[in-house]
C-alpha cells in the first residue's frame, strides 16, 4: 500500500548508535526532498540503556507521529520491548531484526507484524571497523526508497571528525546495507522532489526557540541547565557571542531570573529558559519583573511533573503555574507555540510583546516540541522585534511609573541623564517612591493590568482554521496530532474547526467570542491529568454548552487517529 508518509522506528541498546543513525536518515530524507520528524526515546540512563529513534517522513509537512509504524529496525531485539508502548504496529508492518542465530530471538516482543531476520552484526564484522548501525542506515535508506547518494555527504559531514578510517568503514557498511536492502520488501515512500537549496531547514523546537529569541532581539541570557530546556541554552551559548550577546551560566534559577531582570533594566532584551522545577523557583522574581515593569522572557520547556516527575518526557502540565503561579495580582503574558517551527515565531513575538508592554512573558514550549527534530519549510522572516518605549529626552519631572494616556509609561535606561529612577517591587507612586496607600496601589494595579489587556495583539492570539459547528480547541504540542486528524477528516469530506491558542494570557474575550461564532460543540485536547487547560478555559471564557474533554497525562503522545475517534460521536453521525 502506498502511503502519504512512512513511519520508521529504530531501536538498539546503549552505545549502538541508533540516534546518530536516525539523525542521518532524517537528514538524508530531507536532502531527498521529504519532510520529516524524528523524536528520541530513551530510558533514564545517561549513557547505555535502550534507545529508540522514531522517524516519520512525508511529502507533506509533518507535526505528529502516525497512529502506527510501518517499519521497525531493531539492532538488538531485546531493546524493542522497552518502547513497544510507543511503537504501535499493524499486521502489515515489518520488523527487521538481527536474530543473530537464525532462530527467532525470544527477547523480541510478540507483535502482529512480519519479522525479517537480517544478520547486521555479522555483516558489520565483515567490514574492518564496521558497525551494525551503519549497516542499518544503508538498509533503511534502500527499503524506504532513498537514493544511495543521499547518504554520502551526510556521512562525510558527521564522521569527518572521527578520521578517515572511521569514515571509510561507515561508507562500506552503508553500501553493504544498501545492497542487502534490495533483497527486502520495499516500501514505496513519498514522491521524491527537487527542493532548491536553503528552502528546507532541519531544526529542533529548542533550536527554534533560541533562534526566535535572538531574532526578537535577545542579547542577554542567564540560565541554569535543566532537561529538556538545556538545548535551547546550548544553542544560545554558541550563537549569542556572535551577535555581541552573552549567556551566563548562573548558580541557580534564582540567580538566572534576577540576572536577566538586571540586564533588561540595563536595556538589553533578556531571556532565560528552564523547565517546571526551575520555573517554580523563579516565580517570586517574575513577580518582581511584573511589579517593577522590567521586560523579561521566561521560556519553560515542560516535562512530566509534579516535582522532578519524569524529566525526559512530555507533558502540558505547567499551564497552571505559568498562568497563576505568581503571588499577588501580577498580570503577565503567557504564550505557547502551536507547532515546532512556531517556536521561532512565538518566542520572537514574546520578546516583542514583553518589551512593548514592559512586563514578563512566559513561553510554554514542551519536551515534545523542543526535542523533536524536523525537516520544515524555511521559516518566514518576521518583523516583530524588541522595541521598548524609551523616552528620547527626559523632562524635569520624569516619572517612571506615570499614568498617562497609555498605561505603558516611557522607560529610561541607565546612562540616560535625567532619567534616573528606582525600579521597585514595593508598591510605588508614579515617581517610583514606595507607597502603601490604596490609591497608589489601585492606580498601579490598573496600569499593570490595563497595559496588557488593552494591547492590540492582532490575529496572532490563536491559529484558527476550518469551518463547521464542531471545534477542537487545543494548544502546544497537542496541536500537531489535532491538525493532522482534522486534515484527514477534511480529506474525507468532514469539516471540523480548530482553535490553537497561542496567547494564553491575557484572555481575549472578544476574539474568543468571534472564534466560537456558530460553534455548537467543542472538543478540548490537552496532555494533563488535572485538566488544567479545561479549567483555564472555563475560568476565562464562555464555552458552548456541549464540551468534551480528551486529556491524559504524559508521556504518551496523542495520535491523529485518537482525535478522530474522540470526534466520531459527533462527526460520525453526520458524515464519517
Amino acid at each position, binding site marked *: 500500500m502506498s502511503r502519504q508518509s512512512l513511519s520508521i522506528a529504530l531501536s538498539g541498546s546503549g552505545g549502538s548508535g541508533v540516534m546518530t543513525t536516525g539523525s542521518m536518515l532524517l537528514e538524508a530524507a530531507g536532502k531527498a526532498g521529504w519532510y520529516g520528524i524524528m523524536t528520541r526515546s530513551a530510558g533514564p540512563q545517561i549513557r547505555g540503556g535502550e534507545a529508540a529513534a522514531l522517524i516519520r517522513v512525508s511529502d507533506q509537512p509533518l507535526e505528529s507521529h502516525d497512529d502506527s509504524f510501518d517499519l521497525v529496525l531493531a539492532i538488538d531485539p531485546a531493546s524493542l520491548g522497552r518502547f513497544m508502548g510507543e511503537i504501535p504496529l499493524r499486521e502489515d508492518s515489518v520488523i527487521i531484526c538481527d536474530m543473530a542465530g537464525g532462530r527467532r530471538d525470544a527477547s523480541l516482543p510478540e507483535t502482529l507484524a512480519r519479522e525479517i531476520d537480517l544478520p547486521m552484526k555479522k555483516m558489520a564484522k565483515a567490514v574492518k571497523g564496521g558497525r551494525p548501525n551503519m549497516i542499518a542506515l544503508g538498509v533503511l535508506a534502500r527499503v524506504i526508497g532513498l537514493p544511495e547518494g543521499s547518504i554520502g555527504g551526510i556521512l562525510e559531514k558527521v564522521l569527518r571528525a572521527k578520521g578517515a578510517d572511521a569514515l571509510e568503514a561507515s561508507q562500506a557498511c552503508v553500501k553493504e546495507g544498501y545492497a542487502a536492502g534490495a533483497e527486502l520488501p520495499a516500501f514505496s515512500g513519498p514522491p521524491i522532489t527537487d527542493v532548491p537549496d536553503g528552502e528546507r531547514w532541519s531544526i529542533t523546537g529548542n533550536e527554534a526557540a533560541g533562534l526566535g529569541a535572538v531574532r526578537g532581539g535577545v542579547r542577554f541570557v542567564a540560565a541554569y541547565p535543566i532537561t529538556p530546556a538545556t538545548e535551547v541554552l546550548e544553542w544560545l551559548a554558541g550563537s549569542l557571542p556572535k551577535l555581541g550577546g552573552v549567556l551566563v551560566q548562573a548558580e541557580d534559577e534564582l540567580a538566572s531570573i534576577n*540576572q536577566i531582570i538586571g540586564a533588561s533594566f540595563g536595556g538589553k532584551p533578556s531571556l532565560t529558559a528552564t523547565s517546571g522545577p526551575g520555573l517554580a523557583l523563579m516565580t517570586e*522574581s517574575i513577580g518582581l519583573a511584573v511589579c517593577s515593569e522590567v521586560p523579561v522572557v521566561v521560556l519553560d520547556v515542560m516535562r512530566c511533573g509534579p516535582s522532578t516527575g519524569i524529566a525526559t518526557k512530555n507533558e502540558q502540565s505547567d499551564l497552571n503555574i505559568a498562568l497563576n503561579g505568581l503571588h499577588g495580582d501580577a498580570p503577565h503574558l503567557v504564550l505557547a507555540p502551536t507547532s515546532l517551527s512556531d517556536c521561532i515565531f512565538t518566542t520572537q513575538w514574546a520578546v516583542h510583546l514583553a518589551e512593548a508592554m514592559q512586563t514578563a512573558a512566559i513561553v510554554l514550549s514542551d519536551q515534545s516540541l523542543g526535542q523533536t527534530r524536523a525537516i520544515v519549510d524555511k521559516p518566514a522572516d518576521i518583523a516583530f522585534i524588541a522595541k521598548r518605549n524609551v523616552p528620547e529626552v527626559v523632562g524635569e519631572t520624569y516619572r517612571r511609573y506615570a499614568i498617562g494616556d497609555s498605561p505603558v509609561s516611557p522607560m529610561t535606561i541607565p546612562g540616560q541623564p535625567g532619567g534616573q529612577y528606582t525600579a521597585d517591587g514595593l508598591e510605588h507612586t508614579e515617581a517610583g517612591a514606595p507607597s502603601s496607600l490604596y490609591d497608589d496601589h489601585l492606580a498601579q494595579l490598573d496600569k499593570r493590568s490595563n497595559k496588557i489587556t488593552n494591547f492590540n495583539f492582532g490575529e496572532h492570539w490563536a491559529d484558527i482554521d476550518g469551518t463547521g459547528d464542531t471545534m477542537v480547541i487545543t494548544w502546544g504540542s497537542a496541536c500537531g496530532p489535532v491538525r493532522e486528524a482534522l486534515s484527514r477528516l477534511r480529506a474525507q469530506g468532514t469539516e471540523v474547526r480548530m482553535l490553537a491558542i497561542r496567547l494564553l494570557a491575557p484572555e481575549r474575550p472578544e476574539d474568543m467570542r468571534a472564534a466560537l461564532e456558530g460553534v455548537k460543540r467543542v472538543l478540548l485536547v490537552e496532555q494533563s491529568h488535572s485538566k488544567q487547560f479545561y479549567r483555564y478555559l472555563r475560568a476565562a471564557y464562555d464555552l458552548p454548552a456541549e464540551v468534551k474533554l480528551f486529556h491524559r497525562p504524559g508521556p504518551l503522545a496523542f495520535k491523529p487517529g485518537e482525535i478522530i475517534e474522540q470526534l466520531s460521536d459527533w462527526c460520525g453521525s453526520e458524515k464519517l
Partner: protein
Amino acid sequence: MNDTSACSRLGPKEYKSGVKPVWCPGCGDFTVLGSLTKALSGLNIAPENAAVISGIGCSSRMPTYLSTYGFHGVHGRALALATGLKVARPDLTVIATGGDGDGFSIGGNHFLHTCRRNPDMTYIVMDNQVYGMTKGQASPTTEPNWEKGKLTPSGTGINPFQPLVIALASGANFIARCSSSDQNGTAKVIMEAIRHPGFSLVQVLSPCVTFRPEQREWKKLVQPAPVEATSDPAQAARRLLTDEGLYTGVLFKGHRPPYQPTLESTIDQVTELDEEFQL
C-alpha cells in the same frame, strides 16, 4: 532628578533623591547613605551612570534615597540582579547595597558565587547583626548567645557567619570593613572599592539602634587595622581569622581579573545564523 550632562562636579547632596528615609532616628544607615553620596561625588560619577541595586531590608532601602539609577529588588537577590546589569552594561558603575540578612542568609548563595565570578562591582553590606525590617530576629552574623532574637529566645546557639572570611575563601577581589560611625573613612573606602577592579566587598558595621541598641558602643570599639591591606590570600586569611571583627580599613586587595564576557559581535545580521539550519 539631576541633569548632569554638564561637567561640573556634583556635591554629595545632589546624589540624594529627596525621598525621606523610613529609618529609625539614629540608625547607622543614615551615615552610610552619607558616605555613599560622598564617595559618588568624590569619584565624580554622574548619577545617570551609576546604578545602586538592593534586596529587601532597612538597609536595602538605600537606592530610593539616591539620585542615581536604582533597583529595589526582592529579598536576597541583589547580587544576581547587579551581576546581570554589570555584564550587560559594563560601562555603568554598579553598586549593590543591603543587610546581613539579605546578603548572608537568604542571599548566601549569590554571595558565594558573585565573589567567585568576580564582576567589577562594589557590594556594601550594612551589618547590624539582626533583621531590622522584620523587627528583630537573629541574622547569620548574630552572636550565638543573643537571647533577644524573637525566633531564637535562647540564642541561636550557632557560630556566626564570617562574611569577610567567606568572601576571601570564595574569591572576592577587595575586602574592607568600615564603621558607620566614621562617615568620611567609610566614604574613602567605598571610593577605593569602586575603583578597584573586580568584586569588592565593604562590610559596614551599622548599628540597629532599635533592636540592638548596644551597638551604639561600636563606635568606641572599632579601630583601624594595624597593618596595611595585603594581596596575599593566605596572609589575609590568617588576619581575618584572628581579628575580632572590629578592625576597619581595607583588609585585602586581590589581582584577579574581573569577569566580563566580551560584547563584540562577529556577525552583522541575525539572519547569518540561518545557515546552520539549511539542509
